[in-house]
């Protein structure tokens, strides 16, 4: 009896061991298949994009169909202009909201603000585009860099606000108290002690938000539109790298596809480099550790 029981038990345990091995293996496979698409995208972006990434590509205007050469110079400049416009509006507002949420965290406005920032994060970017269209394009009666910059700013704000809030909360309370105990007014403590301590982290957060904004396409499609020439004025339509990639990708021309891949290489390299540096910096600064 005890013999057959032990046989039964060992049989069951054997099965449990096999199930254990199989399913742990399945978890490993899941992790692998989550990474596989990224690797595949990298391979194609590098293989197809890198050869087309020439000096001419970076500095010249797009050529008409059928003519070789040409580039995305105007689109690269356009993206830089759009992102600068966006950060001119988005960074101050986002940082202000973030500081308010962290330093006056128990006020009623702060609670509403946290809710609002969450809402804003969940708004799809194309909807932000519609909003910018209604706010800027309709009154000005034309697609423009202003409208595009405004849309990107709205997209940046919740990210910047959240990062600022989270990093300020990591600053130890006793630093603030020490400042206040010395008789320094609260605003000076916030600006020169709290914000300064967290500034490195907040900057990297802002850089990541900028990188994200630089890759946004949908809202620009209905606000900044596109332009074949160098940007001349902010109240004109302006080209940008993502919109140019989109335009080239859905065209039927082989040369344009190549240009699209080169543009994609540019964007991916930017995003990857920024993320990697952030990661390396973050693992060193003590403030970011929780």
């Amino acid at each position, binding site marked *: 009896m005890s013999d057959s029981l032990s046989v039964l038990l060992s049989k069951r345990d054997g099965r449990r061991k096999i199930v254990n091995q199989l399913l742990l293996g399945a978890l490993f496979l*899941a992790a692998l298949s989550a990474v596989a698409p990224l690797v595949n995208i990298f391979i194609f972006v590098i293989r*197809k994009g890198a050869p087309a990434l020439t000096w001419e590509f970076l500095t010249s205007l797009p050529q008409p169909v059928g003519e070789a050469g040409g580039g995305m110079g105007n689109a690269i400049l356009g993206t830089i202009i759009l992102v600068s416009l966006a950060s001119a509006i988005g960074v101050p507002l986002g940082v202000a909201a973030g*500081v308010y949420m962290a330093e006056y965290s128990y006020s009623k*406005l702060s609670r509403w*603000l946290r809710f609002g920032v969450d809402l804003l994060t969940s708004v799809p970017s194309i909807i932000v585009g519609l909003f910018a269209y209604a706010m800027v394009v309709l009154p000005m009666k034309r697609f423009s860099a202003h409208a595009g910059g405004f849309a990107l700013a709205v997209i940046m704000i919740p990210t910047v606000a959240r990062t600022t809030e989270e990093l300020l909360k990591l600053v130890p309370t006793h630093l603030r108290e020490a400042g206040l105990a010395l008789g320094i007014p609260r605003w000076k403590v916030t600006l020169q002690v709290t914000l300064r301590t967290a500034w490195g982290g907040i900057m990297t957060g802002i850089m990541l938000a900028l990188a994200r904004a630089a890759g946004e*396409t949908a809202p620009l*499609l*209905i606000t900044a539109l596109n332009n074949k020439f160098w940007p001349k004025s902010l109240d004109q339509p302006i080209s940008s790298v993502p919109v140019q990639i989109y335009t080239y990708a859905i065209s039927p021309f082989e040369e344009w596809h190549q240009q699209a891949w080169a543009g994609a290489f540019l*964007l991916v390299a930017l*995003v990857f480099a920024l993320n990697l540096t952030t990661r390396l910096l973050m693992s060193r600064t003590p403030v970011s550790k929780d």
Partner: protein
Amino acid sequence: MAQSSIRRIDVHFGDRVFQLVLRLGSVLVLLLIGGIVLQLVQLALPTIKQFGLGFLVSSDWDPVNDQYGALPFIYGTLVSSAVALVLACPVAVGAALFLNEVATSRVAKPIAFLIEMLAAIPSVVYGLWGIFVLAPWLRVHLQPWLGEKLGFLPLFQGPPFGVGMLCAGVVLAIMIIPTIAAISREVFRAVPQAHREAALGLGATRWETIWLAVFRTSLPGVIGAVILGLGRALGETMAVTMVIGNRPEVSASLFAPAQTMASVIANEYPEASGELHIAALASVGLALFLVSVVINGLARWIVWRMARNQGGAR
């Protein structure tokens, strides 16, 4: 004496100004939300007046004759997101479990970084990759195979185009994996270490520990993570626009081209000229906005409640 009282007033003055500036910024940010709702409603008003709620259930989308119904797009959004969830959930949750429970931190860190990178890649790059790499592969390899083996299901019938609902679903799945994986990891991390030790102490295998002590107890949080992923899939625009084929039709087959609420806006808005056409697209936008907000709110509420309960149990 007089001087010191002036300085005191100055101090409070500075604080008041500082707080006022911060408040102003904060109120502006809050006003953005109100502004978005207001502007969308205003843009959409002509369609709301003309079609009412019937707009949401009519499948007639004909800009030439000014007839508009949003059903094909609602259907497209729902189905493409559903495909994405079916594909992404097991991969993302499995990966999260592997990273948190199985892998050592030397293995987990780089893998976690790569998965996070998936979220950072611009969606237009996904679209490009979808058009030139994924769609041809689907057309030549996967779709004929699916049609042969599972062709008795209406899901897998019809000619393989490559681009279409299935392609959009696969791209969306890749794009929402990082969201689901990241939130799931947070939820798993909230499980007290003592629960794992208790399971192991009772003689459970590692898998049984993961399943019983970690996964089962944090299931509500995982569901929250999945709903957050859904929220991201619903609103994704560019990648979907580039690979879904852009045809406003309701078709049972995943091989057929379709269109989503977000993709129709990106696809038609830049060229829309009729007032009613613009209004109809804005109405689609309004509906998408409401759905995204509700879905995200629900997910956040679930995750937040979960985290609070776990915090209490610790």
